């Protein structure tokens, strides 16, 4: 009887054990079953939008929580993914028939307003859906790779990396707003109606897109769990805690960081693409420094050490944001600021930390109530669900500080 969980654990361990898989299953049930059943399509569309931020938050868990690299520019990658998708949809929406009244038919309307007579070269690949799908992943990955190589090979880390990524996010926004003719400027790319001839504004389409977004999110969470529980994940944690020791053991620390940064950016970009599909436009306000730092707070609230927690964090903070800012816009800004301070001062491990602190007694009670199998199962499994005890958290912070000093 006790051998069965051990045998099963062999494939489950690749994703962090049965406990983690159950948690992901719970998310799947919540977003695929409970939310669609109990809300109308308008609300569901909003929830879908919040869930696209869960991608970014999950990416941040990988690179900030486990890699110790705080990127204040995740909006760049979210935006790149979103803009790639938006460019494809916009080209489809501005077919020569639809834009016959323009002085140059067949190019997006904002280009026509800005006296462009020809489609710029970097818009050309977005005529093809396959190319678009590749570019949604490839463009952010390449950009993150370039930033990563330039920074990490030169051993730029810690606060400097945060400041520079923030500056890059700021540059991106200015560039997009300034190059109105090529990017749609401050309004962004709007009026996106159909995907390969399929109207994306109908209720049915919104349902389909919502479910696709949820499925992609769950795949990303699984992929993230897989990364964290692989040998590479161990190396990542080792590097965050004792960077020099990993370097002296013969590993190229820069490559570890570059990989996790690229992975985080790709996940964010997928979220961005779903954002465009569900919301129907993309604008520079989702790219800039403010948007990017808000994404960090989604992750911090959910728990920077828990992929699953970060998904809840993104959803709940956005839910609070839209319900509070609808009725009390001023209160929301203060609440947001207070959230930043509280999450840092009072619960640095976020919701996931609170849950694992307060759920442990409950779980133990259940364990003693249903003694038969849970004793065997919960022994090895409660441990991975609370990955870092408080002492190691403190050590991690010290090492973050010393890592910064050593540069």
């Amino acid at each position, binding site marked *: 009887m006790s051998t069965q969980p051990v045998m099963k654990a062999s494939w489950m361990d690749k994703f962090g054990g049965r406990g983690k898989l159950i948690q992901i299953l719970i998310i799947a049930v919540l977003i695929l079953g409970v939310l669609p059943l109990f809300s109308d399509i308008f609300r569901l569309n909003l929830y879908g939008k919040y869930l696209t931020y869960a991608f970014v938050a999950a990416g941040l868990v990988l690179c900030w929580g486990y890699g110790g690299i705080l990127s204040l520019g995740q909006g760049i990658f979210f935006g790149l993914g979103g803009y790639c998708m938006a460019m494809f949809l916009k080209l489809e929406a501005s077919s020569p028939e639809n834009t016959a009244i323009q002085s140059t038919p067949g190019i997006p309307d904002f280009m026509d307003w800005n006296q462009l007579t020809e489609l710029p070269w970097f818009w050309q690949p977005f005529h093809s859906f396959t190319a678009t799908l590749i570019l949604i992943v490839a463009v952010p990955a390449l950009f993150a790779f370039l930033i990563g190589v330039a920074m990490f090979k030169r051993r730029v880390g810690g606060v400097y990396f*945060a400041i520079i990524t*923030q500056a890059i996010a700021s540059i991106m926004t200015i*560039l997009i707003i*300034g190059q109105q003719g090529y990017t749609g400027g401050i309004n962004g790319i709007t009026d996106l109606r159909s995907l390969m001839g399929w109207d994306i504004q109908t209720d049915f389409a919104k349902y389909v897109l919502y479910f696709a977004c949820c499925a992609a999110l769950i795949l990303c969470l699984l992929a993230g769990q897989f990364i964290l529980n692989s040998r590479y994940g161990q190396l990542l944690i080792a590097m965050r805690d004792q960077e020099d020791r990993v370097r002296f053991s013969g590993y190229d620390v820069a490559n570890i960081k570059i990989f996790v940064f690229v992975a985080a950016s790709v996940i964010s970009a997928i979220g961005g693409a779903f954002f465009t599909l569900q919301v129907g436009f993309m604008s520079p306000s989702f790219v800039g420094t403010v948007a990017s730092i808000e994404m960090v707070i989604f992750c911090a609230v959910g728990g920077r050490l828990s992929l699953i927690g970060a998904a809840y964090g993104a959803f709940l903070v956005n839910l609070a944001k839209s319900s509070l800012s609808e009725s009390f816009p001023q209160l929301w*800004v203060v609440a947001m*600021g207070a959230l930043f*301070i509280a999450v840092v001062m009072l619960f*640095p491990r976020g919701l996931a930390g609170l849950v694992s602190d307060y759920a442990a007694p409950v779980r133990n009670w259940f364990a003693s109530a249903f003694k038969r199998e849970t004793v065997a199962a919960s022994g090895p499994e409660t441990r991975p669900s609370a990955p870092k005890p408080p002492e190691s958290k403190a050590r991690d912070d010290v090492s*973050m500080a010393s890592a910064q000093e050593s540069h």
Partner: protein
Amino acid sequence: MGGYTGEELTAIFLMQGFSGLSLFCVFLLMALGLAIIFGQMGVINMAHGEFLTLGAYITYLVSYVASDVWPFLLDYYFPVAIILAFVGTFILGYLVERFLIRFLYNRPLDTLLATWGLGLIMQQIFRSTFGPREKSVVMPDWLMGSYQATDMVDIPLNGLLVVGITIVLTIAVFFLLYRSRWGIKVRATTQNRMMANAAGINTERVDRLTFALGCGIAGVAGAAFTTIASTGPTTGSLYIVDTFLVVVFGGAASLLGTVASAFGIAQAQSILSFFLSGSMAKVITLMTVVGILMFRPQGLFASKVRR
């Protein structure tokens, strides 16, 4: 740059140089406080822009009182405003260090997030108190005119005042950091906290005063800022990203580097903005800075201290 003769180019550089000078002053005034807080203490204060805004609003209040209640004081309010702006921001900075920053010294990334939150709250308080619209101070008469250097060149007096305040403040910070006992204590604490403690320096007190002083300087910067532009709730945060780049580009612990990089970035941006659009000038300048930082992550003037 094809269509311009050499003479015209010189004129353009001069003209844009003067407009770059005011940007340079704003950058440097903000960066001075950051150079102390970030350069010496290693603390990222994302609310620094809001401290500048606070100083600016204090100046606005003083000018309002001077013009409405005691009009005969209008000519003399500015020095008072500078002192009050310094005191106000100094006290707030002291409290912020005491109740927030102190707990986060070994978590620099968390300090960044917490101070960003503080900045958001301060912005909203400004917005609720002073309204979302920008406020301008009532300028005393002696600041209104301009100084005619030659027939062509004509420098507004308020611009001159800001340049003057910037120079005085920079020299003051230099002497404080490198020529005073307090500066020795600050640098000793930065370099080796344990040894500084052992040598009898009360490092906690040094930290508190350093942070408060950096905020106080932001307050003075805000007071100076009011003479060249109007103040809104988000005035300070507009410059925060640029200013951090200025400090990092100059080499965090080097005051000379901060001055040089503020000058370089401001001038490049304003000269380029004559040839290109304003946004492209900013993009190119910032990209160049980021590019250089990739090759020289320690900044232009790195200190020789082993870190």
